[in-house]
């Protein structure tokens, strides 16, 4: 039985005076893979890092919103209680595995650190079980190795083991395969998905790679300029995109059988947070732009589904 594990409601984050994300809303059910997709600078990572409160302090400030994990609002918890949540309830897998691991500490010690909450006699068994699940053939040897002795793909699998070791209910994977080679990406994602399923952890997958989101996510939210443009089941969003940005984004994804002429670049670049105004933020790059686009304010329709600004186009 799936229940609502995480609910992010009206989350707005600001750096200094500049608000970078605006009323972001989404829910993740237990065991589900939920992808946040969008271009660089859209606020995907900021949103993800706000959940375990890992945003740089004091420059980042959560202006408004709630982050409810298993019924508790994380934003109201004291910092001591957050220590219990980070790692234990929420595991993180970051983009650069080389930077996520300590270069002078053996892999075994780093893995043991992740299971320090467990009774001593169970720790070694648990990490060996995880290493086997991550398809390491010789866990004993891996435990004695150091990060520099391993490839990027192997290191990322270690990071996945560390994230899943304390049996978290949610794993935040921030561009987990961007730093890896294309042929290893799928292998690492397959392991990440199968390990999350077997450990019954939900995953928040942050990616700019539409192929990855399409292949692995159950549901997806497309982010643009700090707002959620569209959310839905992955098949729905990819087959019948509604938001002009999603439509434009899917047109630039190279795919088998497409020619260069089919690839329609989106003109310009993502709006800087300093230039956000009340109008639709995509209007400068949108092929469906109309006069009212710069007047229509932002509003949340349903649970963060889409902006009022673009409803004009959904109806017509």
């Amino acid at each position: 039985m799936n229940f609502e594990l995480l609910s992010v409601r009206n989350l707005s984050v600001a750096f200094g005076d500049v608000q970078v994300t605006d009323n972001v809303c989404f829910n993740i059910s237990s065991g589900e893979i939920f992808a946040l997709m969008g271009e660089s600078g859209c606020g995907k990572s900021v949103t993800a890092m706000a959940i375990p409160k890992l945003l740089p302090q004091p420059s980042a400030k959560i202006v408004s919103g709630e982050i409810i994990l298993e019924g508790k609002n994380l934003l109201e918890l004291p910092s001591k209680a957050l220590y219990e949540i980070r790692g234990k309830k929420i595991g993180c897998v970051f983009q650069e595995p080389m930077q996520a691991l300590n270069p002078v500490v053996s892999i075994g010690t780093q893995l043991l650190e992740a299971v320090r909450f467990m009774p001593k006699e169970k720790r070694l068994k648990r990490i060996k079980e995880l290493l086997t699940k991550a398809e390491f053939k010789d866990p004993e040897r891996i435990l004695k190795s150091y990060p520099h002795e391993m490839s990027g793909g192997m290191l990322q699998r270690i990071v996945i083991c560390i994230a899943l070791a304390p049996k978290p209910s949610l794993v935040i994977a921030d561009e987990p395969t961007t730093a890896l080679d294309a042929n290893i990406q799928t292998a690492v994602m397959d392991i990440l998905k199968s390990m999350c399923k077997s450990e019954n952890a939900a995953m928040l997958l942050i990616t700019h790679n539409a192929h990855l989101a399409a292949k692995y996510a159950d549901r997806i939210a497309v982010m643009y300029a700090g707002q959620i443009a569209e959310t839905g089941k992955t098949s729905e969003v990819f087959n019948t995109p509604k938001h002009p940005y999603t439509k434009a984004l899917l047109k630039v994804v190279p795919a088998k059988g497409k020619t260069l002429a089919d690839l329609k670049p989106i003109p310009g670049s993502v709006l800087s947070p300093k230039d956000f105004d009340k109008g639709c933020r995509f209007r400068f790059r949108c092929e469906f732009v109309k006069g009212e686009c710069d007047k229509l304010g932002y509003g949340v329709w349903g649970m963060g589904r889409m902006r009022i600004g673009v409803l004009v186009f959904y109806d017509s």
Partner: protein
Amino acid sequence: MILNVQNLSVTFRSKGGVVYALKNICFSLEKGDVLALAGESGSGKSTVANALVGLVPWEQGGTYELFGEKINPYQKKSFSIVRSKMQMAFQDPYSSLNPRNTVMEIVTAPLLARGISKNEATKKAKRMLDLVGLSNADVHKFPHAFSGGQRQRIGLARALVLEPKILICDEITSALDVSVQAQILHLINDLQNELELSLIFISHDIDVMEMIANKVLRLSNGEVEVD
């Protein structure tokens, strides 16, 4: 035939002995061709590119012909001729530009190194920056002020300012977002038509290669893979 490479081998020495990074690679390029170099990481794609412009030493036994002219790949000097006709754009737009030089300094550097006057170099650089879609206001900025896609445009301008006939693109879109990747691919296509370039396009994305290339050279463990 504008480029003909026979028996290109490159070795690296390590503790365990001599390792062949490339072994007897042969290929050629016709005018207007887009040759895709495909293969997994470590298969030797970038080493081919580096060997072509003389950034890694060749093993004995290879021959190299460029626009009908025999190049001696064992003499450093001969690559000066190569580089006037063949230039390279790199993968990482963040580390391939000197952070302490302005865009104008970066793009004029190859011209000044060839003894072209500063006035002439500035003129040429401006024209090339305009061609890759950077405005006049950008020329005195430093690389940190630009996004990944814009930096890649600067890298392309630097490579093209010497008016080469062959451009090697080493994974130039790998570090970019899909929307920016589409912009750069279209830019490459436009530049190719406008400047009558032939391209050697290195990528690990099969979909991208199918879009842009008319020939494919597949490498595996430093050797040409036969289909």
